[in-house]
């Protein structure tokens, strides 16, 4: 429910259904009946935030407690923000319409770096000081979780706590602790010190950072008994973990409007550019029976007719065939479509494939990521041109005419031949179509290639690498466009400037906090939206604080440099990442975990594939 004052303005904004609440399955609790109120904030618009699985999990989890309530908050779009500000309506949570300021915990999920200014904007709209040090009372406590908190140093001055790794267990423990400290009337500092003792909790203010003259880090020191290294949380058994049995069903269409069920966390592949793969190790699977139970429960309670099985690499799920054989008859009978993102079709049983597509046919997608085998070996992406072509041939015979290929440019060691290789691979797919005797008659083929710009990320073997400057990327994009000769190939490119900013914050340090605040004060928000990104303001902001942004992006680091995230522990060791970096430069691939353990270090986190292999614990 929205605040009454808003009523007369609702029809003046785009898609008012984003601001009303009252959706099916939303949980409305009386604020006086609970001890802890948790405002779960997604720092982007409703349509994007409502598609996020992590929010659905934490929302159901917290609401499963009798002593707590969880409500949803999204970034208001520009038109709505104007109204909130001019009418003095503070940012509110959708379920009760209560002001966010009055909640005990304000939790942000950080999925991409370019949403940082939105966090400050939302805190400001809530009527709160953006800096942690200026919020003196115990509550509201501002916390953050999600992928970006593996290096949240550029936001360290704004949040009180970040939660590292899987949020299910640590969120509950944090709520317990806050409840206790709130009851005894403790202060914020006292609480933060205690919270730092919970595994998975990182309190930025308890670490002081010293810099060298060249701008690199001299030392990071833990204070007040905080652990020297904050370790990520890892849910060992996904079957016993809390999983939602229902989703809030939005009135309006969101980006991913369907049932999403995780089949496993982690990844055995070790693609060297992929941050998610390393951050979420070790691989832990949910049993097929549990996956099916959740799919059925969520479809029943929401009415969704599409299921997406979610993981980093569907084909690596050992229970996939068992699950599909058991679930497909039910799905087909109820006209439910099952989507298997990132499925490798090469060794997938044909009859299952046919059943999968009997409801609705979706597109054929590959992510070779690089144009030549040499570069694919460097990034450890074990997909060969032959595999792509043979799968395409199989698909063309089956009636498909559209193929999507995902690539990156700006990868370490990349040469012009690698960029041209992208066009060559796309051309080979086009040729494969015309050589295919069983291709659909009278139809043309469409190969669309999407080219992203590579951004080196923390906790990957490429964390030391230099990122291509925007002008270099534009040149490479130009070379690619020249190399594409067929009109059957369409190319979509990304704006290199967003990748540049993303790169700054991905591997940035605490000195960037001032920059983020200044840019936000000068109207930067929704930076991931091309139409909102104000690059000139960002460049002025860097300049104002004497910071060279290319120090963070274009500089190759030495292996012995202290990185801004070195005091966080996500399982994988720096020694392993270094070995992988060296292998990359030698063009050597590394086998997946199930074939051979590479002693990455994640085994100490207990669970999943490491136990399965009885691997040597590092």
């Amino acid at each position: 429910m929205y605040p009454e004052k808003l009523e007369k303005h609702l029809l003046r904004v785009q898609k008012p259904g984003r601001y009303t609440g009252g959706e099916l399955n939303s949980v409305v609790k009386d604020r006086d009946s609970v001890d802890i109120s948790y405002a779960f904030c997604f720092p982007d618009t409703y349509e994007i935030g409502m598609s996020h699985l992590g929010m659905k999990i934490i929302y159901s989890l917290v609401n499963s407690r009798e002593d707590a309530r969880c409500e949803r908050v999204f970034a208001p779009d520009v038109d709505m923000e104007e109204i909130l500000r001019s009418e003095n309506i503070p940012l509110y949570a959708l379920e009760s319409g209560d002001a966010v300021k009055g909640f005990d915990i304000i939790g942000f999920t950080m999925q991409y770096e370019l949403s940082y200014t939105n966090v400050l904007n939302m805190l400001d709209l809530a009527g709160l000081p953006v800096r942690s040090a200026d919020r003196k009372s115990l509550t509201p406590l501002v916390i953050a979780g999600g992928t970006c908190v593996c290096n949240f140093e550029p936001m360290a001055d704004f949040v009180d706590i970040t939660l590292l790794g899987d949020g299910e267990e640590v969120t509950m423990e944090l709520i317990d602790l806050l409840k206790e400290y709130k009851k005894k009337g403790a202060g914020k500092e006292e609480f933060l010190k205690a919270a730092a003792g919970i595994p998975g909790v990182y309190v930025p203010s308890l670490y002081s950072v010293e810099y060298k003259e060249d701008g690199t880090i001299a030392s990071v020191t833990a204070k007040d008994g905080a652990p020297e290294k904050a370790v990520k949380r890892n849910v060992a058994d996904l079957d016993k973990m809390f999983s939602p049995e229902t989703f809030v069903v939005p009135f309006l269409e969101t980006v991913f409007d369907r049932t999403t069920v995780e089949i496993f966390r982690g990844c055995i592949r070790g693609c060297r550019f992929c941050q998610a793969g390393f951050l979420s190790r070790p691989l832990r699977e949910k049993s097929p029976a549990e996956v099916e139970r959740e799919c059925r429960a969520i479809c029943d309670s929401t009415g969704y007719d599409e299921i997406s099985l979610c993981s980093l690499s569907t084909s690596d799920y050992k229970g996939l065939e068992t699950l599909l054989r058991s679930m497909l008859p039910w799905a087909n009978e109820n006209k439910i479509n099952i989507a298997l993102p990132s499925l490798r079709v090469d060794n997938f049983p044909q009859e299952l494939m046919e059943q999968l597509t009997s409801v609705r046919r979706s597109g054929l997608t590959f992510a070779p990521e690089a144009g030549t085998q040499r570069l694919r070996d460097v990034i450890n992406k074990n997909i060969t041109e032959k595999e792509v072509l043979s799968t395409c041939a199989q698909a063309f015979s089956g009636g498909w005419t559209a193929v999507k290929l995902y690539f990156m440019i700006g990868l370490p060691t990349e040469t012009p031949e690698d960029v041209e290789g992208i066009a060559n691979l796309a051309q080979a797919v086009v040729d494969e179509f015309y050589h295919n005797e069983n291709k659909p008659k009278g139809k043309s083929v469409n190969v669309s290639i999407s080219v992203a710009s590579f951004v080196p990320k923390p906790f990957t073997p490429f964390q030391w690498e230099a990122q291509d400057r925007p002008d270099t990327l534009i040149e490479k994009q130009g070379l690619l466009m020249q190399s594409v000769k067929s009109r059957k190939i369409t190319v979509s490119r990304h704006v290199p400037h967003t990748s540049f900013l993303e790169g700054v914050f991905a591997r940035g340090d605490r000195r960037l906090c001032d920059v983020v605040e200044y840019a936000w004060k000068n109207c930067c928000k929704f930076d991931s939206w091309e139409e909102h990104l104000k690059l000139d303001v960002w460049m002025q902001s860097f300049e104002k604080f004497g910071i060279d942004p290319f120090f963070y992006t274009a500089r190759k680091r030495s292996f012995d440099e202290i990185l801004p995230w070195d005091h966080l522990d996500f399982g994988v060791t720096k020694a392993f990442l270094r070995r992988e970096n060296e292998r990359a430069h030698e063009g050597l691939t590394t086998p997946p975990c199930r074939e051979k353990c590479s002693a990455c270090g994640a085994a100490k986190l207990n669970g999943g594939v490491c136990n399965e292999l009885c691997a040597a614990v590092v």
Partner: protein
Amino acid sequence: MNSVRLWYKKSGLAVYTSHLDMNRCFTRAVRRAGIPLWYTEGFNPHPYLTFLLPLPLGTAGEREPLDIRTVEDISAEEIKKRLNAVLPEGLEIVDVTEARDKANEIVSAAYEITARFESGEDAEKFAKSVTDIIGTGTLEAEKRSKRGIKTVNLCEFVRSFEAKADGNAAVIRTELLTGTQQNLNAGLLEEALEKAAGISPETMTIVRKEIYKENNELFA
């Protein structure tokens, strides 16, 4: 296959749901209710579900028709009961009937517009002012159609009009041409009246009360 006409009431928060989203919303509700729908047999099968007279965003409805096709025989009572158990707040099935009249038989509908003001005086002033405006027989406004935006005389779409002050509110009861041939959005009329009268209400609600065929016969 059975054609069934659902009559639903749309109020409260649900008025902020657009027509396209209503379609999604009802498709899911019917699925949750376990009512087996008939699916179209094309390349991309989808359940058959037709709103006969989509409500504009922001307008509530007392009794709005929606046709579905089921593959099993289910009683009207059962359909109503099952759907009402699963519909979100603000949406309610008030009746289930056979689909008798055709959508193109609709010619007009009765609307109730309630404009709330800070004082009873303002409400009086508004009610009197809008009655006078309609009385002149001319109220020009820009109207968007498939062929683009053009200026039309809204009074040509008004079949009856009555405005009265009631406390701090002005209540307008009006019958407007509605349907596939000629159609006027009650929200557009209210906006034009507001502009011409030079007074804006604090809040405003619009409800479609009844839908008519020729000769003021109720659409069924």
